[in-house]
């Protein structure tokens, strides 16, 4: 029983990381049909921001608190720059955005290597987050993983509320549902796109801050995570956050269970097979917007 709960929690915490990364992707992919491979490098930017702040601010706790908003803005700004410089020109060619942003991600990785050096760097976690919470029944849960789970859930909640309640959220939803109709109704779709990209990329920055609590920071840290996050978006279905939330946790638990029963490498294959099998059942993902399009 203890083992089961332990595995379940490991899965949930893997899911929380995936969710943080996938949220931003789901937002930009859903609204603009843009596949941003540089998202992984925005994560890296968030992580390095934490590192830089920790060099200048004494006290790991404060630096983490400051890092969250700063990383959001840093990564968000990078996203907006990318949107203005390149992605804006490619809205009609979603597959090409994938290739172009991959080129950008190559350059950003090299930039990180030149600025911070190839070897990984490490941040200190705040004392508060280094221990474990002991639960009845001999169960322990690592504080840092709990923090990441809370951060992910807070991000989902904030995003959901923003989409539901604010005027900006209404505009975003309108553009997602029918871009042309939104445009003729007087919604400045280009500006909405840019704002969405800012938020989506900013969320990657938050994910980067969270990842500093789990492991080292390096130029290629984004590459490995991005594919899993994309799978979450694909399986979750475009344009809806709840799909990403459910699928992130489901894949996390599946991965953890698979790892427990077999090995890490076999678990990856199991997850992949499960995804392909799932797409046989629902090729458009878990949730989809109802449209009248032929696809």
């Amino acid at each position: 029983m203890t083992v089961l709960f332990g595995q379940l929690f490991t899965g949930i915490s893997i899911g929380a990381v995936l969710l943080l990364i996938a949220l931003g992707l789901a937002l930009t992919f859903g609204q603009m049909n843009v596949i941003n491979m540089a998202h992984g490098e925005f994560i890296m930017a968030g992580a390095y921001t934490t590192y830089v702040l920790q060099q200048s601010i004494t006290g790991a706790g404060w630096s983490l608190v400051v890092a969250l908003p700063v990383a959001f803005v840093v990564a968000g700004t990078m996203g907006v720059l990318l949107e203005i410089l390149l992605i804006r020109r490619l809205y009609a060619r979603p597959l090409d955005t994938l290739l172009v942003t991959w080129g950008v991600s190559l350059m950003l990785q090299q930039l990180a290597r030149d600025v911070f050096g190839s070897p990984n760097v490490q941040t200190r976690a705040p004392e508060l987050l280094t221990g474990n919470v002991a639960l009845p029944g001999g169960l322990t849960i690592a504080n840092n993983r709990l923090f990441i789970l809370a951060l992910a859930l807070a991000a989902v909640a904030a995003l959901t509320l923003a989409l539901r309640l604010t005027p900006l959220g209404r505009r975003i939803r309108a553009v997602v549902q029918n871009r042309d109709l939104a445009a003729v109704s007087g919604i400045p779709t280009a500006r909405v796109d840019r704002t969405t990209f800012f938020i989506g990329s900013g969320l990657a920055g938050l994910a980067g801050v969270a990842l500093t609590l789990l492991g080292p920071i390096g130029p290629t840290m984004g590459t490995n995570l991005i594919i899993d996050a994309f799978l979450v978006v694909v399986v979750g279905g475009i344009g809806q956050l709840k799909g990403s939330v459910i699928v992130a946790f489901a894949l996390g638990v599946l991965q953890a269970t698979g790892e427990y029963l077999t090995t890490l490498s076999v678990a990856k294959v199991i997850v992949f097979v499960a995804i392909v099998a799932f797409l046989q059942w629902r090729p458009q993902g878990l949730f989809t917007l109802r449209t009248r399009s032929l696809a």
Partner: protein
Amino acid sequence: MTAVTPAPPSVADDPAPTSVVPPARPDGRFRLRTAAGFAFGAALLFAVAPLVLSDFRLSLLAKYLCVAMVAVGIGIAWGRGGMLTLGQGVFFGLGGYAMAMHLKLADAGPGGMPDFMQLYGQLDELPVWWRPFASPWFALPATVLLPMAVAFGLGSLVFRRRVRGAYFAILSQALAAAMVILLIGQQGTTGGTNGLTDIKGFFGYDLDDPVNQRMVYFIIAGTLLALLALTRQLIRSRYGELLVAVRDGEERVRFLGYDPASVKLVAYVVAAGMAGLAGALFVPAVGIISPALIGIVPSIEFVIGVAVGGRATLLGPVLGAVAVAWARTALSERFPGTWTYLQGLLFVVVVAFLPGGLASLWALARRRDGAVESRRRGWSPLGRRRAERTEVPAA
């Protein structure tokens, strides 16, 4: 070369009902030029290159030509069929590992085991799934059929359920990631991160001998030319037209009574087979196959060459792949950092601003000439179609 004969390629695997579609294109006018082109290419590869290049450069060229073979396949699947496959490394790897396993076992001799197995795995006997690869009659066909089978498995599941576009690209990429993790994880039987190294013999020939390296080069060059001839026939056939039609308007093709899923499947499987063959020939040319050669990054790098050269053309992918691979060797040794920036920039600039690749510059120039000429002669539908062929779909 086989390309000269205008007979339609074997359409045994053509899923289209072979009914009233007229022959794709009256290409009689092109026959002489194609033959000349092939003769020129063959002369270049078989006579000029071995004379001009040192043994070292020639073996590098052999390596590039393997990459070009993968590129030809990507040209079919992506350029012609609109399926961006980011996981060709998987098929390259399957072919490469199948060949390397056989060569390893042949090096070890009858009853012997590859050296690394005792080292990492402490295995007493050969794993069951290694055993069939001892026979060349199994291993050689497997280098092509294994990748094709995997592509068929994934493709038939995915295309039938109309998973496409970005979804397909991401899935193919995830397949590459899963395969690399699996290979590294099963270190005892796959060699892990190191892969299969130190391959000494190639069907009884010593690979250290420059003469035999030259022979490997000739095999590779010949295979590439044969693949190009095959591809030319394929894309000019009725099936080739259908493939482009599926790329440009899948629904319309469906309404016309064809099955787009089968059409795409054939292209994907053919591309996988070419990548497998390339991987198999890469092993004797370079002497190693490892996860680092087939993962996500190399898989996307295969695509770079194709995009730079011109995805929708026949020769574009080949020339692009060779050029990019050559540039990488030339620049990355001296300026490793600069090359990465350059590679990224090349990708961004070509895909964003020149989606037809460098080949489209040629086509653009020709179209300008053609426009002048057609004004003189009146409008010619054939000329227009030829110009359109090199254009790239929006999706």
